[in-house]
């Protein structure tokens, strides 16, 4: 079959990009709601479960190669300084130290738009100054302390709102603040002028740290002319591109592998400086080199979710929302971009007049990195609180107000019809499950005299359509077993299992006969495992690959059985011919060692419809008005994500998103010492991620309606949706409980008590 080139537009985390997809033949007809599926849509435990529970799953951190050297990094103690002199002689004299790299001796290696790994001007506490390779990690750590550096300390600013101030030190030539996003529809000025009610408030969110349990890291081996890098990453091909750019070596000489990885949540999107440093040392020293960040390093130099300050003006007339203005400033640290918190304001509700602006603010802090629904968590926290504030002012139930603006089947941003939208149904289910009828505008008495009870909810909008290019192959072995190969990743979502389900279903084999090999650039390209796009990008491609393999298998079987291929089908691992079952292995063994290889590629998304995911979270909680503590009792999470390929794994995904959202809104906050620019809680003691004790009852519901316009499986993404509405729903419930609103996340006890005190 010849290859066709298709140009297409795709959405990734709210950004539209042009993609080129190579496709062959015709796409398969989508499995509809009535399709008779026996494996897809069923609860299957993960196919790689045994590796995970026995400790056999190999993570990058678990790789110990013979003769391997260990790297530790010297990081800047100053938020901004000129590195004037480095003397590594004391470090090099330490037995076991093999080499030291820094800006005066490191080979040129371009990285993210800069021409070197080690900056002349370090720009945050934790910026890389030098790297030591040694026989043992503890030796490298000791050597780092023996490197002498002369710094000239420069003026700096670390706080978002201080950096926005006119008098703040300018840390970029064009100023600290730049516009990064802009959207407008209708006539906002006129709508505000003629509105009956206007609410204007400022919301703030804190810097959230990913704290993936496996820190960022790489193990590099330079064997002959091939560089092999094992890395804990969400995108092996992104790491390959970063290595090629830095080292100027051909793709044929680079192989990147990620077998198992211990979480990323958006932060592991490509090569890091640690990757390049490991590769440089491996080439220089002719040994495998391991560079794995410590927990402290992870929390200063491996990304974060930007703190924001957001101003919303929202107006009502005749009990409807007529206009909204949403302005947002994000602390990008030393990042080169920012997410777009007003994204949900632009597209979630059908509001006629909308104006949003997003600004990037640079500071002398570590760079931001995508963090599960970047911008949308922060933006929804502000947007869905402003809706509740307006509803209270105009005397409407906040759910009723949302319903007025959530029913239209047309995307207000593009004017295109949604392929599918079940937001109203999400509201119905959520309201019933939480018992919304118990909610009172003034809140309720809690389970004790000093406790108040409240209900809150919020809506979720996200893309999740998936995108091309994504390619896969399905290998049918002579014994009837199957191997699926694609250069995608499993970041904890269950990629292997879901791909195996789709292949087993399409090919007609049992799930236990399917193995999935992923995370290797020697296989076909697959996109980054981020943006909720793995399932919706990969499952249609593997389904096509399975169909191609089946078609070839039937040609082989027809020849051997001396019947026409059209008289055959495959079911349960056997070829069925006129009621007679022959196991695949028995057929294929006749042709000795021939492996059937099926190829599949992701077709473009339809461009005449808007592909989105929707959802709603409902929260019931109590607040202790003496201590300010928030006790979340029940969360109902309802999501509209097209077909659910595996309800068991999907529910895990939602529970995880809810729990991370609880951390964001109740306990997680990076604390920075402003005079020194140091993160004072860059560890798992001072930085409070949720523990098992912080988990409320969580009810998970899916609409589970296949989106047959989206792709041939009818599935959309679920990675991000379950964290998006939770913080706003909790904030709304707190406000309902205590009658006063805390507009800053996290809603700590101190902030609750402060809000209560100010009211009195």
């Amino acid at each position, binding site marked *: 079959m010849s290859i066709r080139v298709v140009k297409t537009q795709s959405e990734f985390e709210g950004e539209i990009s042009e993609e080129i997809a190579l496709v062959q033949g015709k796409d398969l007809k989508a499995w509809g709601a009535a399709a008779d599926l026996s494996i897809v849509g069923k609860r299957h435990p993960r196919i790689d479960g045994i590796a*995970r529970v026995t400790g056999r799953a190999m*993570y990058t*951190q678990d790789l110990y190669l013979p003769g391997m050297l260990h790297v530790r990094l010297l990081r800047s103690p100053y938020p901004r300084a000129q590195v004037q002199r480095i003397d590594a002689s004391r470090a090099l004299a330490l037995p076991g130290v093999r080499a030291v790299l820094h800006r005066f001796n490191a080979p040129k290696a371009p990285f993210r738009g800069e021409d070197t790994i080690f900056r002349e001007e370090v720009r945050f506490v934790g910026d890389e100054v030098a790297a030591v390779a040694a026989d043992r990690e503890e030796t490298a750590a000791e050597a780092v302390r023996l490197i002498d550096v002369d710094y000239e300390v420069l003026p700096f600013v670390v706080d978002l709102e201080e950096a926005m101030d006119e008098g703040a030190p300018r840390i970029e030539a064009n100023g600290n603040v730049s516009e990064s996003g802009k959207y407008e529809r209708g006539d906002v000025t006129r709508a505000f002028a003629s509105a009956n009610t206007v609410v204007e408030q400022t919301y703030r969110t804190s810097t959230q740290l990913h704290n993936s349990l496996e820190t960022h890291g790489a193990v590099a081996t330079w064997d002959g002319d091939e560089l092999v890098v094992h890395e804990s990453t969400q995108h092996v091909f992104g790491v390959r591109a970063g290595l090629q750019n830095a080292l100027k070596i051909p793709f044929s000489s680079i192989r990147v592998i990620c077998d198992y990885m211990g979480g990323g949540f958006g932060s592991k999107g490509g090569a890091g400086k640690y990757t390049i440093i490991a590769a440089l040392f491996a080439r220089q020293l002719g040994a495998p080199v391991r560079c794995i960040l410590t927990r402290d390093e992870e929390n200063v130099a491996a990304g974060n979710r930007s703190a924001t300050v957001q101003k919303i003006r929202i107006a009502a007339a005749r009990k409807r929302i007529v206009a909204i203005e949403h302005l947002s400033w994000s602390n990008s640290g030393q990042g080169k971009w920012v997410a777009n918190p007003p994204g949900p304001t632009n597209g979630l509700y059908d509001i006629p007049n909308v104006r949003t602006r997003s600004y990037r603010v640079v500071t002398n802090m570590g760079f931001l990195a995508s963090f599960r629904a970047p911008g949308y968590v922060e933006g929804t926290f502000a947007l869905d609180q402003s809706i509740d504030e307006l509803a209270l002012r105009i005397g409407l139930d906040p759910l009723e107000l949302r319903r007025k603006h959530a029913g239209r089947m047309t995307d207000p941003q593009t004017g295109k019809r949604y392929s599918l939208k079940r937001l109203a149904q999400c509201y119905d289910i959520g309201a019933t499950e939480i018992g919304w009828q118990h909610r009172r505008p003034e809140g309720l008495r809690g389970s004790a005299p000093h406790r108040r009870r409240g209900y809150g909810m919020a809506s979720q909008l996200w893309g999740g359509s998936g995108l091309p290019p994504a390619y896969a192959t399905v290998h049918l072995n002579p014994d009837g077993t199957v191997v699926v190969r694609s250069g995608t990743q499993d970041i904890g979502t269950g990629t292997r299992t879901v791909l195996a389900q789709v292949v087993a279903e399409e090919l007609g084999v049992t799930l236990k006969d399917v193995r999935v090999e992923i995370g290797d650039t020697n296989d076909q390209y697959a996109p980054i495992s981020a943006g909720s796009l793995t399932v919706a990008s990969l499952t249609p491609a593997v389904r096509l690959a399975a169909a191609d393999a089946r078609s070839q298998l039937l040609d082989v079987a027809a020849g051997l059985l001396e019947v026409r291929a059209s008289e055959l089908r495959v079911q349960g691992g056997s070829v069925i011919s006129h009621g007679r079952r022959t196991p695949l292995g028995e057929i294929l063994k006749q042709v000795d060692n021939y492996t059937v290889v099926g190829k599949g590629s992701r077709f473009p998304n339809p461009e005449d419809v808007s592909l989105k995911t929707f959802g709603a979270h409902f929260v019931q909680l109590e607040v202790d008005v003496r201590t300010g503590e928030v006790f979340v009792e029940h969360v109902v999470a309802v999501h509209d994500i097209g077909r659910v390929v595996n309800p*068991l794994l999907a529910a895990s995904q939602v529970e995880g*998103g809810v729990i991370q959202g609880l951390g964001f809104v109740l306990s997680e906050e990076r604390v920075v010492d402003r005079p020194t620019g140091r993160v004072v809680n860059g560890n798992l*003691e001072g930085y409070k991620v949720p*523990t*098992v*004790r912080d988990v409320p009852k969580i009810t998970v519901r899916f609409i589970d309606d296949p989106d047959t316009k989206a792709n041939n499986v009818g599935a959309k993404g679920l990675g991000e949706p379950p964290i998006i509405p939770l913080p706003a729903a909790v904030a709304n419930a707190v406000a309902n409980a205590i009658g006063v609103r805390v507009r800053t996340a996290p809603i700590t006890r101190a902030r609750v008590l402060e809000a209560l005190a100010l009211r009195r």
Partner: protein
Amino acid sequence: MAKAPDFVGPGALDVSFTVNGDGVRVHVPPHRTLLDTLRETLGLTGAKRVCDEGNCGACTVLVDGTPVYSCMTLAVACAGQVIETVEGLASNGELHPVQRAFIDHDAYQCGFCTPGQIMSCVALLRRDPSPSADDVMRAVSGNLCRCGAYPNIVNAALGAAKKRTKR
């Protein structure tokens, strides 16, 4: 069983203990943790290094049946003791009931905290074959899971207990 000596070092020394039923002898400096010894010297990489300072529980192993943070335990302090890691739970190709339950209940996502969670649950079930949900939460309250698999971790431990009691 030999008691760990009160004073050792400063140089490396031989230490003997039992790991997953096998007697081993390692040559380690006094400051080397049990975690690093298991991972680097003995090739048992199931226990993970996440915080390396006793905050997260990903390195949990059993020492004489008690769950400990192996990043906070010195190898030399384990002389003569019985150490169990996640690699030793399955026997004759049969998964431990807790391992089986973690698979059936999908009690993990990325899996990085899983070995530690499992060891904490195994120790609990040995102590108390039919724990309450609250007991399970207490047992794993020192094991962080960033993916948020907590509800299923609790369900898995309760499920494993139920199956065992039935037998």
